[in-house]
């Protein structure tokens, strides 16, 4: 299969992710984060990133932990039971190493959706009366200095149609158009048509809102394999800039119908992340010390990789020890 969009991950990250970029990543907590790409960003030492996240979880925490992120817009920094609050995120926020601005999951989703739709904002009732509206994470100076940030976090407006829809007032949340979005999917065609299996989260909106889109996938397949069931594809090829085959590209997070999250990795990560020295060691050993994602998977070893292989019936690793 040939296509000028197919490239290896290091090239895709080098071409499309620059220091200081506004980026967003797909996935949710411990599922389908584009971890191969996250680790490659860490390996390339790209920093000063402005990261847009809803509840992206593991990928967010690792980018923050490795010092790649200087500003974060987020709804939720957690990885389920493995880290009810992401540890490096918590630490960075408490130590003032990270400027954080809070939204809700739906607000962030709507902001990506607005970006994808090409409208400057979308309305919701979420957050009326709360500090999500009152308290802003970024100062007016920060906003003014970066034309990629709106001057206002959000706006509350009376419903111009009176009480139409039984809604007297709405919050308008501004569109996000990241410089680059990175998502990990199950299958892509050579030109980028992509298929997500299981829950899509907000990946599709994130993908379509971005100026550039990198798609990593478990497998690049023939176009016909995807076009035989186009209702199952979500990303049209013309939205995609780079297609990267990255097997286990979401590891240690899950990829539905391919593999589960790795509870061993996530438990170890919690331990490492809780201590600065251990964390530096973790980064050196697992991320910076390997050439690429295949190197990490090799380090983990076949036994653990086999243990998380998805059961074809359920799509996850049935009976996996997850304590």
């Amino acid at each position: 299969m040939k296509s000028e969009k197919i490239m290896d991950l290091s090239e895709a990250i080098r071409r499309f992710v620059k220091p200081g970029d506004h980026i967003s990543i797909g996935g949710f907590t411990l599922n389908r984060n584009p971890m191969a790409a996250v680790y490659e960003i860490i390996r390339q030492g790209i920093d000063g990133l402005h990261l847009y996240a809803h509840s992206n979880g593991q990928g967010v925490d690792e980018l923050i932990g490795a010092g790649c992120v200087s500003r974060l817009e987020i709804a939720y920094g957690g990885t389920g039971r493995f880290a009810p609050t992401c540890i490096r995120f918590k630490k960075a926020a408490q130590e003032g190493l990270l400027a954080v601005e809070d939204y809700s999951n739906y607000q962030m989703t709507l902001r990506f959706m607005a970006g994808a739709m090409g409208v400057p904002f979308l309305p919701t009732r979420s957050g009326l009366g709360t500090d999500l509206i009152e308290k802003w994470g970024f100062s007016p100076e920060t906003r003014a200095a970066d034309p990629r940030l709106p001057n206002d976090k959000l706006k509350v407006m009376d419903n111009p149609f009176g009480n139409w829809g039984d809604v007297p007032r709405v919050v308008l949340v501004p569109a996000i158009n990241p410089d680059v979005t990175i998502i990990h999917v199950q299958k892509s065609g050579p030109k980028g048509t992509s298929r997500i299996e299981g829950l899509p989260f907000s990946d599709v909106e994130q993908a379509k809102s971005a100026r550039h889109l990198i798609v990593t996938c478990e497998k690049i397949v023939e176009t016909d394999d995807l076009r035989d069931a186009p209702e199952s594809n979500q990303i049209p090829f013309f939205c995609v800039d780079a297609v990267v085959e990255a097997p286990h590209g979401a590891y240690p997070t899950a990829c539905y119908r391919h593999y589960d999250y790795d509870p061993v990795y996530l438990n170890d990560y919690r331990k490492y992340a809780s201590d600065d020295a251990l964390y530096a060691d973790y980064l050196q050993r697992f991320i910076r010390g390997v050439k690429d994602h295949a190197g990490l998977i090799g380090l983990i070893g076949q036994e653990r990789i086999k243990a998380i292989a998805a059961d074809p019936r359920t799509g996850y690793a049935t009976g996996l020890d997850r304590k």
Partner: protein
Amino acid sequence: MADYTLRELMTIVAAREIRDGDIVFCGTGISMVAAMAAKHISAPNSVIFFETGAIDSKLEEVPMAVADPRVMFHTSVNGSLADAFATMQNRFTGKKVVGVMGAAQIDPYGNLNSTVIGDYRQPRVRFSGSGGACDVASFVSRTIIFMQHEKRKFVQKLDYMTSPGWLDGPGARGRAGLSDDSGPAAVITNMAVMRFDSHTKRMYLEGCYPGISKEKIVENTGFEVDASHAEEVAPPTEAELRILRERCDPQGLILG
């Protein structure tokens, strides 16, 4: 009487709040097990629904996050986040939704903080943030809140209001632009069940867990709370416990 743990009691107390036909939005952990239990106990036609977009998952194993692949199995629809929250904000389906949630702080009106302790931009303690909690609390007909009963968590004033409860009292939700008919219904703690007065919208003590005195609860609540009508909460039955242990969390991942 059956032997049970505190977490089992809390789960069953929450499960009893769920009515047949409810669409239950729940998060991870104990709230998910409560929703699972309700389906087996009193609300067979209730529907578990995750903010990640999974509707009526067949939960053969306990998910450890709302994005756990276990929630994606055998659902009615695997929708997007946008779909999930639209279902709650929708005028028709939103009325059927009950939300189950937790927080780091709660105030007398059931407003919740899950964002920071201390100054917002220089937090002393940073928590996960809203996730879908603010959305749920803004949209759905009623919410059930899990809390640890501690003075520093039941506070007169939140450090940060992440999710709207009854705001500052009667009519406040309507004035803010939310619905006056929706809001927090119950707070389930490790000591008691609290509800909100229909007139003042302030929290009061409805039920004490077996063996816990009113005084202890009042003492652990950081604001004044009416305890005058409190009764003892009925403990879980053996049948309820069996369902919890055998059908909801046999691996003990959440309740163990």
